[in-house]
């Protein structure tokens, strides 16, 4: 049986000189967990759509990565998350944008694809739909991490002082 899965945890990597051995091990462990989550679906003959969903859930649950728990902050110190899924054979697709509440935004996108006649739902309407679908919700604090909050404070200070934007990818992309 031939199958394969590829994942990314974002292009906002820490600068190599700032990456400690411990931090690197944490990132690689998070990536491996996600790969194995998706692989378990595929090796049982499961569909690609479920494999990518499980892999992204593992990454959303890992505060190392900028999605779900560990999301970056807006300039208002809030979280606004987006997610999308698409199935190649059927071209079915579902997405959410500007939400904060569903523990796993990728499951919100799946619900839009499978339980609505829409492709994209945003904001409060998307949140109400997710509640109707019985998705697991978390308080906003669940998504907080001190590292992301510190990055936000640094960015807001930069803007306040109108300093040139010399941020690295990690600061910019989260």
């Amino acid at each position: 049986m031939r199958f394969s899965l590829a994942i990314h945890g974002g292009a906002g990597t820490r600068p190599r000189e700032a990456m400690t051995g411990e931090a690197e091990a944490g990132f690689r462990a998070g990536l491996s967990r996600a790969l194995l989550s998706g692989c378990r679906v595929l090796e049982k003959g499961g569909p690609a759509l479920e494999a990518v969903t499980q892999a992204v859930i593992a990454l959303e649950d890992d505060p190392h990565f900028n999605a779900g728990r560990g999301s970056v902050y807006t300039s208002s110190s809030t979280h606004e998350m987006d997610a999308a899924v698409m199935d190649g054979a059927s071209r079915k697709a579902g997405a959410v944008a500007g939400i904060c509440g569903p523990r796993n935004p990728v499951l919100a996108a799946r619900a839009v694809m499978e339980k609505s006649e829409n492709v994209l739902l945003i904001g409060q309407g998307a949140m109400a739909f997710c509640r109707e679908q019985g998705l697991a919700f978390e308080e906003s604090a669940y998504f907080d991490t001190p590292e992301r909050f510190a990055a936000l404070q640094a960015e807001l200070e930069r803007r306040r002082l109108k300093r040139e934007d010399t941020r690295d990818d990690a600061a910019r992309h989260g």
Partner: protein
Amino acid sequence: TVGAVACDAAGNLAAATSTGGMTGKLPGRVGDCPVFGAGTWADESCAISATGHGEVFIRYAAAHEIAARMRLGKQSLAKAAEAVVAELGIQGGSGGLVAIDAAGEVALPFNCAGMYRGRIGADGIAWTGIYRE
């Protein structure tokens, strides 16, 4: 941003992407993740999940550009994905993507310092990468 693309045993493809966006973004700002054809795409020939400067990935319809080059230009996944990511970099769109085709071949190009990434196949061996390695 995080994402995944997969080719299952039946040869079907799928993509998923999820993100908190960019640090200090304006409330209401939406990047390429939920814009199909920009940050997320899947059809019969490829599946793609992108990460990076979303505004540029949207304006260049990054994911769909790769799919179009494969479908219409008969380019390989690797050639199309590498070329589009390089072009995005020239246009100020720092970032990268993961892509897969119906044969299960993957491409993991990026035009910035690094990208947290990984791949796994039927051998069950998980490979992970961060910088160019």
